[in-house]
């Protein structure tokens, strides 16, 4: 079997993925899988999806050659896939449109979502408004404190934001709570999961919806640069923007795939969110994957300056790509990500999301050591407007 033909019928990517849920959810997941498979075969669904990506999101997003910054770095040429220019400011909307269209086909009038930084919550609230659906977003009370502006955005869009007070009160707990809501209101409710994690079919489905990113790049790079890149670089929290840009490139020989995790205050400090670099396999949120966990198998709290990477697991397909050696995973600290954040502001006039700044930072680390005709394609998965508060605070400023 070719590596990009995965998952198998039960959602396995090698030893990872699968459906590790209570029996109460099994039937709903089977229905979802059946509806998704049917939708994928229906040209009308594909047409609807493509129409909204074009006219509502503004796709295709451009690829931009960051010439000035590449020159400053003095090595490989850096190209940016501008997902930050999408409606709502990040790649998350690609997936929420796909899932909302599927929800509509399944006759579900209520959608729920989990969110960490709030970007997926905003994208879910946006499509719920767009398609006239009721929307409930679960968000850890810690994250609500940190991301007040996104909470307000979701409310403006008509969503109800429910604070989650259990566990560590962050993204992982919001995901647990969304699952609990789903299992309780299963008939009318569609769960729009925001990343390539969760039980099958979510990792596959979210990847498929996000692959538009890589598909566009495969067309755009020869037009713009005359060839495909030497490496594709993307940040990895749950891993949806990375899977979206990696997936179409898995079959392209010679293209390195590099996922960049959040090293927080450093891998040695224990305060990070680098599941692939520093975790070990286990079962969480319905799938088997690399997890940050203690010796008793309890899931650890994570740390990153970017709330969107603050997740103790990672999509199972990334776990598989790592073990299979098709993708490499590295980690970048808060400090390095913040430096890349300001460099991109200064040299290119682009304010990246702190999540995306991790990918940018790794490109900046390796570019100087490479010849000038080498090409690095970085997924600029979101814009940094949401991060003003965080960045200003780190600089000792009050807005």
């Amino acid at each position: 079997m070719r590596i990009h033909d995965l998952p198998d019928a039960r959602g396995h990517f090698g030893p990872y993925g699968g459906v590790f849920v209570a029996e109460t959810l099994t039937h709903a997941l089977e229905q979802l899988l059946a509806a998704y498979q049917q939708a994928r075969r229906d040209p009308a669904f594909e047409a609807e999806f493509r129409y909204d990506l074009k006219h509502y999101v503004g796709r295709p997003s451009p690829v931009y050659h960051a010439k000035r910054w590449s020159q400053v770095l003095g090595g490989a040429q850096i190209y940016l896939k501008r997902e930050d220019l999408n409606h709502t400011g990040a790649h998350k909307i690609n997936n929420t449109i796909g899932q909302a269209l599927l929800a509509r086909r399944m006759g579900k009038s209520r959608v729920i979502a989990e969110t960490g930084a709030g970007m997926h919550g905003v994208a879910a609230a946006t499509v719920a408004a767009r398609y006239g659906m009721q929307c409930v977003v679960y968000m850890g009370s810690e994250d609500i404190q940190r991301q007040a502006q996104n909470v307000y955005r979701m409310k403006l869009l008509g969503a109800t934001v429910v604070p989650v007070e259990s566990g560590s009160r962050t993204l992982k707990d919001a995901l647990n709570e969304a699952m609990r809501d789903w299992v309780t209101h299963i008939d009318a409710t569609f769960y729009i999961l925001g990343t390539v994690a969760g039980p099958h079919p979510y990792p596959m489905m979210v990847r498929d919806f996000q692959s538009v990113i890589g598909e566009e790049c495969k067309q755009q790079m020869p037009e713009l640069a005359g060839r495909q890149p030497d490496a594709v670089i993307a940040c990895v929290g749950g891993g949806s923007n990375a899977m979206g840009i990696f997936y179409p490139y898995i079959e392209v020989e010679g293209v390195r795939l590099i996922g960049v995790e959040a090293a927080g205050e450093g891998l040695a400090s224990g305060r990070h969110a680098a599941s692939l670099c520093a975790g070990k396999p286990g079962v969480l949120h319905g799938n088997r994957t690399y997890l940050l966990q203690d010796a008793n198998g309890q899931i650890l709290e994570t740390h990153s300056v970017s709330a969107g990477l603050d997740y103790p697991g990672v999509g199972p397909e990334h776990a598989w790509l790592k073990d299979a050696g098709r993708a490499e995973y590295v980690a970048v600290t808060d400090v390095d990500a913040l430096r890349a954040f300001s460099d991109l502001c200064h040299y290119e006039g682009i304010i990246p999301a702190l999540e995306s700044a991790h990918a940018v930072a790794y490109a900046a680390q390796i570019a100087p050591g490479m010849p000038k005709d080498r090409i690095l394609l970085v997924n600029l998965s979101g814009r940094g407007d949401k991060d003003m508060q965080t960045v200003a605070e780190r600089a000792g400023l009050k807005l």
Partner: protein
Amino acid sequence: MSRIQARFEMLRQSKRKALIPYITAGDPTPALTVPLMRALVEAGADILELGVPFSDPMADGPVIQRSGERALKQGVGLRDVLGLVRDFRRGDTQTPLVLMGYANPIEAMGVETFVREAGAAGVDGVIVVDYPPEECAQFTELARRAGIDPIFLLAPTSTERRIQEVARIGSGYLYYVSLRGVTGAAHIDLADVAAHLPKIRAVTRLPIGVGFGIRDAESARRVAQAADAVVIGSRIIQEIEEAGAGQAVARVKTLLRPIREALDA
């Protein structure tokens, strides 16, 4: 014959229904877990379900979540739970004991190590909430070889194919989750129980326990008209939570006794 099978056989002969209380190991304190287990047995429990605390209990409602958090704050892990089981077995070799929890703590310990140590500690059955049959063939086989019954959940939405599969690989009893939702939800759908249990019985002779949403003697009695066993968790934990460490043992006895009486009436 396993301790669980023997207990159901004994109950069947005396035409009684099994009462299965659930508590979380380590809540309110590890020192109180064994006294609480003994109190539950004294008050009429036939089988005990002991919850293994997990940081991310996706299928549990707020009451059991909080009990797990209290236990985790005191550092209670799976090895500690097995220690509590050994302590319990020093005074009680008869009451069947079932561990209920999530896959990750078991996988972190190692599946083989877990079943070996659990079997040696005196565990009779294991419910792994997030292990559906197709994901745990090896675990089920190892558990069975260690003399531990793998117990599976069924839901109102379970298909006939799923019921057959669970009946084939499960043993001890089947755990029918009587509502759509998480543990501790307010209402049990008695009509649903009455409608679904015959479908399960058509496929298997395993005893059927019903849980999720049973809160008092009356709901227990009505469920027992259709089921072989009644599982009560959140209501007991709520009692422990309200009572605090000082009163917990006395209060769970007071709670459980009328339920036992209602089942036997």
